[in-house]
Each structure stands twice: as C-alpha cells, then as structure tokens.
C-alpha cells in the first residue's frame, strides 16, 4: 500500500476517533460512538499491516502478542467490578505510557525501520519528538502506577511529602530539558537512558504527594499525559492517526482536570503541588466532642422517609467502598412504590474519578434521567423533605459557603442543609478527607445513621 493511501486511511481513523468522542454527548448516541472508535482502531491496525507489505518471519509473533494482549484486556473488561473503575483506568493509563516508552526506545535502537535515519545519526527533529514521547510516556507510566496503588489501597492514600520536594521536582524537570539537549547534540544513547530514568522518577514524585480525594484530578491529568505521549510518538512516526488521537486525548484529559479542579474550587497547581489538608488539620477537631449529635437507626430513617413526599439522594465515595449502589436502588424502588419522588444529586468530585457515581448508579439500573448534576438540582433541596447522604461528606459541608476560614471555603457544595431533614449514613463521626468537621452533623434536622452504607440501606428497606 502506498504511503499516501495509508496516510489517508490514518486520517479516516483519526476522524472516526473524533466521532467516538462526539458520540458521548448523550447516552443515546454513545454506543454508536464507541463503535466508531472500534472501527477507527481496526482500520489503523489493518492499514499498518498492509503498509509494511513484506513481512519478516516476525508476523507470527506480532499476531501472538496481539492476541495475548487482547485476551487479557477482554478478560479484565468483563471481570472488573464497576466500583474498581478508577483503578482500572489508572492501570490502563500506565500501559499507554509504557507502550509509548517501548516504541520510542525501539525507534531509537532501530531508526531505519521508521525512516528516521540510522543509529548514531537520527534526524534532529525525530530525536526531539522521540524524547518528548518517551519522557511523557515514562511520567505517565510511573505516575499511573502510583495512582493505581493508591486507589487500590496497596499504598496509603495520604499525601507523602518531604522537605524541598518542589525544588527537587523542578530540578528534575530542568534536567529533562538538559538531557534532551545533550542527547540531540551527542546522539549518545547514555543520555537517552538517563532521560528515561529521570522521567520515571518524576512521574513517581509527582503523584506521591497527592491525597486520595484528589484522585479525580490526578486520573484526568494522567489521561491527558497519555494523550501527549501518544502525540509525541505520532510526530516521530509521522502518523496522522496518532497525532489526532494524541491531541484529542490530551485536551480531553486537560478539560476533565479543569472541571474537577473547579468542583473543588482549587487551582490545578494547588492540587498538583499536593499536601491538601495537612496544614489545616489542627484547627478542625477542637470542639467536636462537646457538640451533641442526633443519631438514629434504620427504623427512624424509614419512618422519616415514609412520611416524605420527595427524597434527594447524595451518593459519595463511601457508597462505592461499601458497594451499596444495588441496595440503594432497592430502597429507592420501595420508596417509589409509596409514591415518593426520588432524585439523585451528584457532585462533580464525588468518588474517585470523573463520573464515578453516575456509572455506579447506572450499574444499579438507576435511570439516568433521575440523576442530576450539582447545578441542575441544587435549588431543589429547599423543597425536598429528606436528603439521604450516603458516603458523601465534604461535598455537603456548609462551611464551604459560610466559613471563610475553612480550607474548602468557596468550593461549590450541595445545599443539603436546606432540606427539611437530613439523613447521614456514615460509619463514624470522623471528618472527611479534607480533615475538617462537617457542621451538618450537628444540625437540629440531621439524623446520623452510624453504620456500613450497604447494611444500613438494606435495613431501611426492610423497615419501609
């Protein structure tokens, strides 16, 4: 196949990828979008095989490795529970990062195969592109691994900081630029290996200071990085499909990071530089022992809800941890049988990744037109009888609106306290991730339900 013809096919798959993202503008068109994505990928892979034309005996290996990877991927996709989606996405990002690194290294070792010159005299532009692709890929890889370990709970979710961290990171970033320069001027492979090593280290250091609840930003950011890495490799390989995709994914991840940051009223740099909550904690827990809390049991909660005419459910990460989404849906079904209007309110940063709660509710068969975003539903709290907060905390804290001293001041929150009564399912009174107390716990109209989210929801259903 001629180079021009294959370039046109790559362009077509690039366009199909754009349509794949476009499809996600509504649930109705989304499955078609996914189909376009698969089609684009199939075209890109077939065209690559055809454009190589003369196959070395390696073809059989290529197919075997493709098959092995594909089977593993398919197996994971069918087995993974929806609650583990953040870990899965983080893990997948690391694979994109690592394959970018491997392709870059392979191109560096055998530039002839990619028409980039010969070892020791690789074209300057290709060398720069390759370095960028490899460096960003390596950062994506090690960063995603850390994010994965933190989400999986293998590594503690609390921020790990050390003195001089920012300075050290800055020096490493400068050294990446310096190493790229040295690599280009000397063509020495030593600098290439050093560049990779430093990039792996940066990815690691960038993510360790970031805490668990900031993971939505981190995952989106790594999503963006994986795109830029792909684009870097795309420039090296002069491949339009890769360049288009890289740009799409890069800007997609960047926008998601922005939305997540806005959901927390924090700047991107504030999140990335990490250590949120660590400095604030001392002021928080002073007077909480003295304040009375009303706590109740499943019967009380069922009684309150039975007498309500509208209930708004506010899910959070705790629901995912307790796997309570199905139990919740059953409770809601019972409520609906009693002619109670039920809606769901989702805060942009609820959970550990963008849209996390929506997927869990979708899994539990909650119709997506009962699920509302913060801006859509926030005015309804004043007219609702009961707010059922399950596993959410900081996103309901009124301190964000009326306490300028609070570290989360200014963050958009759900106006849960405006409901006639608030039911708060929580395991204990411990403060949320931000390390701050929630005034809502002590309000006259709040009933705390201290229990595991799933068990409590099931018990309420029994009592309805």
């Amino acid at each position, binding site marked *: 196949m001629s180079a021009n013809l294959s370039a046109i096919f790559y362009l077509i798959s690039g366009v199909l990828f754009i349509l794949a993202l476009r499809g996600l503008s509504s649930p109705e068109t989304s499955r078609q979008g*996914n189909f376009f994505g698969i089609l684009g990928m199939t075209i890109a892979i077939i065209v690559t095989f055809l454009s190589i034309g003369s196959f070395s005996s390696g073809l059989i290996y290529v197919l075997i490795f493709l098959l092995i990877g594909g089977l593993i991927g398919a197996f994971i996709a069918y087995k993974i529970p929806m609650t583990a989606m953040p870990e899965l996405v983080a893990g997948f990002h690391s694979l994109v990062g690592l394959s970018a690194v491997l392709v870059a290294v392979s191109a560096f070792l055998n530039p002839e195969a990619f028409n980039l010159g010969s070892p020791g005299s690789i074209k300057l532009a290709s060398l720069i592109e390759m370095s960028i692709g490899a460096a960003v890929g390596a950062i994506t890889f090690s960063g995603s691994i850390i994010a994965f370990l933190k989400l999986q709970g293998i590594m503690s979710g609390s921020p790990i900081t050390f003195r001089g961290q920012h300075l050290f990171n800055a020096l490493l970033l400068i050294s990446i630029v310096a190493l790229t320069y040295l690599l280009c001027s000397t063509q020495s492979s030593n600098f290439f290996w050093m560049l990779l090593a430093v990039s792996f280290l940066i990815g690691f250091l960038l993510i360790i200071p970031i805490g668990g609840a900031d993971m939505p930003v981190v995952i989106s950011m790594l999503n963006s990085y994986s795109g830029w890495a792909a684009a870097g490799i795309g420039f090296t390989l002069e491949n339009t499909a890769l360049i288009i995709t*890289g*740009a799409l994914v890069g800007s997609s991840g960047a926008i998601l990071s922005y939305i997540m940051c806005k959901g927390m009223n924090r700047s991107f740099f504030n999140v990335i530089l990490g250590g949120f909550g660590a400095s604030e904690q001392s002021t928080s827990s002073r007077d909480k022992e003295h304040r009375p809390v009303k706590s109740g049991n499943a019967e009380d909660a069922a009684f309150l809800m039975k007498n309500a005419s509208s209930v708004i459910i506010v899910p959070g990460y705790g629901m995912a941890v307790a796997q309570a989404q199905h139990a919740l849906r059953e409770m809601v079904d019972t409520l609906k049988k009693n002619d109670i209007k039920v809606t769901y309110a989702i805060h942009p940063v609820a959970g550990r990744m963008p849209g996390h709660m*929506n997927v869990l509710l*979708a899994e539990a068969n909650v119709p997506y037109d009962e699920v509302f975003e913060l801006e859509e539903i926030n005015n309804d709290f004043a007219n609702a009888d009961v707010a059922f907060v399950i596993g959410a905390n900081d996103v309901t804290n009124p301190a964000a609106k009326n306490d300028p001293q609070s570290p989360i001041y200014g963050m958009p929150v759900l106006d849960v306290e405006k409901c006639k009564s608030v039911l708060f399912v929580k395991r204990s009174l411990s403060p949320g991730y931000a390390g701050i107390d929630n005034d809502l716990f002590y309000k006259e109209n709040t009933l705390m339900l201290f229990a595991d989210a799933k068990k409590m929801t099931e018990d309420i259903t029994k009592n309805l």
Partner: protein
Amino acid sequence: MEIDPFIFRLSIFILSIFIGYYVVWSVTPSLHTPLMSVTNAISSVIIVGAIIAGLAGNSNNDLTISNILGLLAISLAAVNIFGGFLVTQRMLQMYKKKKKDK
C-alpha cells in the same frame, strides 16, 4: 521555499486540540467515566508504532531487541484496546438498560 512537512503535522495537531476541546466540552458529565475509558482505548492507537517496531525486518531474521520491545508494546497496547473498548461498551450498555426500563 518548500514548507517542511513537520509544519503540516503541527497544523493537524493544533487543530485537533481545538476539535478535542469543543467535542469534550459537549460530553455530558454523566458519561465522564466512559469518556476516560474510551480515550484510553483510542490513545492505544500507538499500537501502529509497536507493530512497525515488532515487524522491522533485518537480514538474518532474528528478533532484535528493538523487535522484542515492539512486541511487548503490542501486547500492552492490545490489553488497552480490547480492555478499553469492551469496558466502555459494558458501561454504556448499562446506561442503555435504563431507557428500556422507562
């Protein structure tokens, strides 16, 4: 003077960023998780580079280090492609069920 082909690629890149910007803003927030998994899958189109690396021929038909790295990259990208698209499919299927329920 002839324009370096790099400039054309750069143009595609910059324009694609803008397309991505507008397309992604139109994605409904409830589909942000499928958005991440599908972007994951499509960024694995990096597999085209891996295939080239894996198949790069040499005179004596032995696997070079470059080939082996390419093959590994093929596996990793394939995990992502199949895993990413299928898990997206699975998620989107759940959004579908709801419509039937109604």
